[in-house]
């Protein structure tokens, strides 16, 4: 994909923001995947209460960290979404409105 480097060069002032956005988008995807998996485990009912609490705390702090990082780069929640066409939105349809 030749576009990316060319564009980064073309707009040096936004390099940091664009890169931050790209990285944060991937991280946010992973975070959401983890969260969904955790919810599935909760649904399955095979986790002891302490584990659930630990999981929840961890995910909650991760989310707080993501919010800080996002604000650091001046990004909105919707900025971390990418339209994957036939695969839907990277972060689901609701990600932009949260």
């Amino acid at each position, binding site marked *: 994909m030749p576009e990316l480097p060319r564009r980064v060069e073309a707009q040096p002032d936004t390099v940091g923001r664009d890169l931050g956005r790209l990285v944060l988008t991937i991280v946010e995807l992973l975070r959401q995947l983890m969260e969904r998996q955790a919810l599935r485990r909760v649904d399955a009912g095979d986790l002891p209460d302490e584990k659930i609490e630990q999981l929840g705390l961890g995910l909650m702090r991760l989310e707080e960290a993501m919010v800080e990082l996002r604000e650091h780069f001046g990004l909105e929640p919707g900025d971390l979404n990418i*339209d994957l066409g*036939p*695969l839907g939105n990277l972060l689901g349809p609701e990600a932009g409105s949260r």
Partner: protein
Amino acid sequence: MTTGGLPVPGRTARPPEHRQESTNLADILERVLDKGIVIAGDIRVNLLDIELLTIKIRLLVASVDKAREMGIDWWEHDPSLSSGQRDLNEENRRLRQRIGDLEAARTRGELGDGSASEAEVGSEPESEEESGPEPEPEPVRRRSARSREERG
């Protein structure tokens, strides 16, 4: 083309309020790109499909505002490109077949039609132009979900 209520003469009851607006581009593109009779001309215009795919694939890595600068913002919202995954596999199969056909045709030094489902009509090709960028075998589909079979 106008939009609005059906022009039924002599109706007395007030028609439901339909939104009046000029025909919007998305509505047109939904139809002129995706539908209508599909015939291969004697130029391999069906490569356009693949060109659209490469645009779409590029979008996957382009950040959204960059895509807008490139002037292809609309494709991001292309309804025919963002359909559900229902017949993704089928479309993949068709796409692979099309790519295979194209490559075979190129090997033979022809500009044949790449699609098995479209007619080959045409005179001897004269264009020497390189065909478009190699399509990528990503699971990206162009068409919206197949039309439901017409009833009776």
